[in-house]
């Protein structure tokens, strides 16, 4: 593989509301077994990419904890490796990352040292299974300067939260607008890019000199008529978990067998294994249509729900249509419906949390 990887995991999505108080969106648990960043890391290692940098900034403790070893994704090798970059204050720079392009610019050294001619860029909150080899082949065949992975969206999708592109017949991107109020097409950018390393470095330098710091606005959109930018159409499962609604739906998607198996089959999405014992079901447990992770102990009723690692559910507690994040303790008799329950919470026994089916409630008791 002729590319190094970069995962942009610095952001906190405003759309995820209080869920990102605790962590960067790249560290959000997905499908009971993964963190969002696992998809980028796995897609890269599965495509044969050996060197990956994860750029973090916002509330990155959870994320760093998750990335404390590179072995889960097979990056701990002499050739290549897994790098995490947080903003650093130096003699010449005392800025946080002022934007995605700035975060890349500030880590230009990483790019300079790579022997791989290409760079692939992937967002930290993108849930999909992606083969970069296919995209690179497309990129080379088109003679593109930059390729952007794009996806034809269903009409029901809220396009205002996405970047929308228009392509000509040759798949060259002619229009690109970020989170438009009115979308001109239903083709969304997935935030996955391939670009020659040298070109990226040149564009980053130019943007920096003009005090422009955003990868999408200041490079992709600004240069789209100067550089040849092509759209690589992807038709597999894709979810960008940047709103509470899309996060909730993405997790519920994992209750579907076909979607779950799609991610589980080789080349599988890999995550950190934590040496937890298997899930245990005591007397009184009733479990229907649910995903339950290791380390859980269940004494109550669970329906249409996703439980992350080490969740304890007390006797007579009822959990429906909900996502419970890791290490939460739900006392006997608590009722939770249409909710996303934060991690490390303790839900008291008499509590009742009921959200709307269209608008799940975020349960967060601790500050």
């Amino acid at each position, binding site marked *: 593989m002729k590319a190094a990887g970069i995962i942009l995991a610095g952001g906190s999505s405003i759309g995820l509301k209080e869920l990102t108080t605790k962590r960067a969106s790249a560290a959000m648990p997905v499908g009971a077994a993964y963190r969002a960043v696992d998809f980028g890391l796995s897609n890269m290692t599965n495509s044969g990419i050996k060197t990956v940098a994860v750029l973090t900034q916002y509330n990155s403790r959870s994320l760093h904890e998750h990335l404390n070893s590179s072995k889960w994704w097979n990056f701990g090798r002499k050739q290549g490796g897994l790098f995490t970059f947080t903003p650093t204050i130096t003699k010449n720079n005392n800025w946080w990352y002022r934007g995605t392009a700035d975060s890349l610019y500030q880590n230009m050294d990483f790019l300079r040292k790579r022997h791989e001619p290409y760079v692939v860029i992937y967002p930290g909150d993108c849930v999909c299974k992606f083969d970069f080899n296919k995209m690179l082949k497309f990129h080379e065949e088109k003679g593109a300067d930059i390729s952007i992975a794009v996806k034809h969206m269903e009409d029901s999708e809220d396009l205002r939260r996405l970047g929308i592109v228009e392509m000509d017949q040759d798949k060259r991107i002619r229009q690109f607008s970020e989170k438009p109020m009115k979308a001109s097409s239903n083709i969304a950018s997935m935030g996955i890019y391939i670009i020659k390393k040298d070109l990226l470095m040149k564009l980053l330098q130019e943007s920096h000199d003009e005090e422009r710091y955003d990868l999408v606005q200041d490079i992709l959109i600004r240069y789209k008529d100067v550089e040849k930018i092509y759209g690589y159409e992807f038709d597999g499962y894709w979810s960008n978990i940047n709103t509470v609604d899309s996060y909730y739906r993405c997790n519920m998607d994992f209750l579907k067998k076909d979607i779950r198996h799609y991610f589980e089959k080789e080349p599988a999405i*890999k995550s950190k294994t934590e*040496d937890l*014992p*298997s899930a*245990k*079901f005591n007397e009184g*447990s009733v479990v*229907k249509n649910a995903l339950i992770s290791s380390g859980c102990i269940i004494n109550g009723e669970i329906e249409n729900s996703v439980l992350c690692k080490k969740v304890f559910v007390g006797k007579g507690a009822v959990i429906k249509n909900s996502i419970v994040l890791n290490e939460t303790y739900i006392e006997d008799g608590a009722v939770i419906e249409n909710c996303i329950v934060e991690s490390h919470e303790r839900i008291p026994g008499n509590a009742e949390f009921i959200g709307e089916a269209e608008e799940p409630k975020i349960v967060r008791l601790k500050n």
Partner: protein
Amino acid sequence: MENKEVIAMLLAGGQGSRLGVLTQSMAKPAVPFGGKYRIIDFPLSNCVNSGIDTVGVLTQYQPLELNAHIGIGIPWDLDVNNGGVTVLPPYEKSGDTSWYTGTANAIYQNLAYMESYHPEYVIILSGDHIYKMDYAQMLDFHKENKAQVTIAAMPVPMHEASRFGICIADDKFRIIDFEEKPEKPRSNLASMGIYIFNWDVLKDALIRKKDQSNCDFGKHIIPYCFQQDMRVFAYKFDAYWKDVGTLSSYWEANMELIDIVPEFNLYDESWKTYTNANSCQPTFYGVDSSVYKCIIGEGSDIDGDVENSVLGVGVTVEKGAKIVDSIIMSGTHVGADAVINKAIIAEKCEIGAGCKIGAGINTPNVEKPSIYNSGITTIGQGSVIPPGVTIGKNTAILGETTLSDYENMSLPSGQNIIKAGD
């Protein structure tokens, strides 16, 4: 090489023949336990939790699964530069070459391995037992007593004492006599087969006893130490310790894990058990599933009923299937409407739709009554059971069976079908 204060030698070469078809193609320490674990995970995890980072694992009988499981020791953090885990199979020598003929003989044949670490102490373990023990505390006890040999021992019911090596100790736990499987036991303090030796003592004893045939710790080395009037102490251990050497004790120990707060608690954060598990997937429970009093491994897909059972990783239970009081190991597929009652089904089996397993009367096995006698149906690794057949109690099946192997679509209680293992 840097000196190590203490190294462990883990005896993992035994067959465990009383586990029947479960140990047909793997040594007993490699047999899965408690869903996602294998028996050897418990002593290995004890080592790392006790701060021992140098472990020699002695293998002999059917080592493939064990080798694959241990690898370079990554799951136990034993992939270290100095020390770590080393698999020690028997090897050819310029003079006499022999298999490991006894527990002590196996250790004797690996003197060079131990010597290379210049240890002060060597702890001898076996890969056959389920327990959590802090070997560091035992070593402290050993040092405090200025012992030359310390034997971990636990009180057992007096009527069972004659099955064990029995330590007769004074009130300071110095052992004054040791009897291997005595007819009339004088104490109920049973040796657990865990020994700490001062290295010089162990080396000397092994060399002096090197010509002893089938040289064994309990039968030869410990008695020798007494003859030499050494300071031999008993380290009393009074927590969960289970020899899962028979099908019924193996089944029971698994079932005990299901208790609300099991005596042997896998969920204890302070003493984790590590295993080589690749899967981090959650388990899916379908709309028609029912799970009640059980442990279910990662990545399983449950659409049927599971009650009072322990399931491994990546088990599929189709709709309408009903599993009660059973152990289903990793990767096994249970077809729709199959009914499984008190069975041990090993890894990667295919149980056809509508099978009835564990049906009928409880007659002992005809060929091997001493192994299959507790009403448990045992199905070995990789077996295939065709749809619709009925299988009785105390039966053993191994291999890819087809309908032609069954008379009237059934295998009566006490019968076997063994098609593999050549």
